[in-house]
């Protein structure tokens, strides 16, 4: 039994796949996509701030449309 386990440990049934090489992305495209996503988050914030009736959201901005709005 112990031998069998050892053998199994040495020779896994399936080989781990190598991760596929990632296609290089040019810096301009990365920056454009990233900042578009940030802009979407900011638009969400503005929409909520201008539409919500409650004081906490509209005046004090106690909201987080899209996750890290307190960061960026």
């Amino acid at each position, binding site marked *: 039994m112990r031998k069998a386990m050892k053998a199994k440990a040495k020779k896994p049934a399936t080989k781990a796949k190598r991760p596929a090489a990632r296609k290089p992305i040019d810096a301009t*495209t990365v920056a454009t996509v990233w900042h*578009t996503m940030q802009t979407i988050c900011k638009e969400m914030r503005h*929409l*909520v701030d201008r539409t919500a009736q*409650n*004081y906490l959201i509209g*005046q*004090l901005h106690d909201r987080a449309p899209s996750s890290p709005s307190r960061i*960026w």
Partner: protein
Amino acid sequence: MKNFAGNIHPGDVFLTNDPYHGGHNCHLPDWGFFRPIFYKGELLFFTLCRGHQQDTGGSFPGGYFPNGYDIHAEGICIPPIKVWDRGRERTDVIELILNNVRWPDGVRIDLNAMIGATTMCEKRLGALLDAYGKDTVLACVNEMIDRTERAVRAEIRKIPDGVYTGQSATDDDGTVLDEQVWVKVKITVKGEKMTLDFTGSDGQRKGFVNSVYAATYGNAIAAAILYFDPAIADYHNQGTMRPIEVVAPLGSVVNCQYPATTGASPVNVGIQVMESVCEALAKALPERAIASWGKHRGDYVFAVDPRTGERYVRTTFDYDGSGGAVWGYDGYQGVSTMTAMGAANRGNVEEMEIRLPWRMTRYEFLPDFSGAGRWRGGPGIHWEAVNEGSAGQMATGSTDGDVVQGYGALGGHPSPVSRTYLRRQGEDLLIKPHRLVKVEERDVLVKHSSGGGGVGDPAQRDPQLVKEDVENELVSLETARAVYKVALDPVTLAIDRAATQALRAKR
């Protein structure tokens, strides 16, 4: 979301506010709407819109009251549920929710606003995917996460390997009164990894200051990244979290178990989590030291507005102090609690007076009411308003800092203690944090909310800046001399260079 495996479709919207389900939330008033975003039939993203609701039901309005029996007493607990299903509102579900909150018409407007924001996100992301294609957009997302991870690892490598400790306390838990609740952190930096270990913090409390792990995790990471290069501030994402581990023992005040109450946790002990991390990292990176912000000062009043004859809840923190100093800069003015990191701020006086039967009578900076330092804390304030509505109640649930001062860093002075009074028939009644008290007609609510802590020795502050602080009535002549060691002419406020040099040489 595991419960919805195989049952997530375009046009769905999910809602949850339950800190014990969902992982995005700290207390019940914060409702989060999640929308799955599909592109050509494939689920690619989720978006979230979260906001603090006017009311969430529970024993008292507003959600910041102490002494709930358990979390169910704090309001309606909504696990992740569908409120829109394939583009159609589940009206019966929404009605069930609205039937369990006060001011349902207002809450309905806010729900629609937040769901609308997720709809807009779906449209904008669709346009982005149309423009660049799925493969390119996803490749960019992965690239950004990887880049941020590399940048954060590089930032951690700049911190000397070692163990750094910090701690902070809230005045009490609102149930066991006048007994401080402590959060302690041990930060271990090794190479490009950082572990924030909250073992040693107080155990879970009966009172409402308990924080679920997700909230502790978010606050701890948010504090840590303040010590990284500001140049990467706009780029934090999932990659930021990979090299940082947060340890919080189950059953402690920083990783509480159902059914513990959590109502105050965005403030207490959320702020304590941030303060302890910032205090610890100031020892590791003094040139990026951050002092405590002024403690949060939120008081929620519920009564009747005679102009309409209707009930209202005043959910504000208009009277927060200011930010703490950081190395090289004085603290910001006018921002709210440290856990909001400047995203939340004081409201507008006219707006408050229009909405609520309270009339402002005083709102100004107080001199000498922040931590002195080479860089001083943002100034504290004196705020007063008179109740022109009915008698009612006030929960000082998200207020703190009447006993425990916010820390100063590197010789900077701590944030002074704050005070809340109800002035009734000429007498000032001291009201402590985390209490529920009666408010009478014509009571004047008086808030002395301290500013932030200072960074560095005050006697090293540029005398010219001290002079300007005196001119701006942020620092008194006496404090300029006694604390900052700057001699000013009492009439002209000219700097007496020789006397200043002598004062500073004496130390």
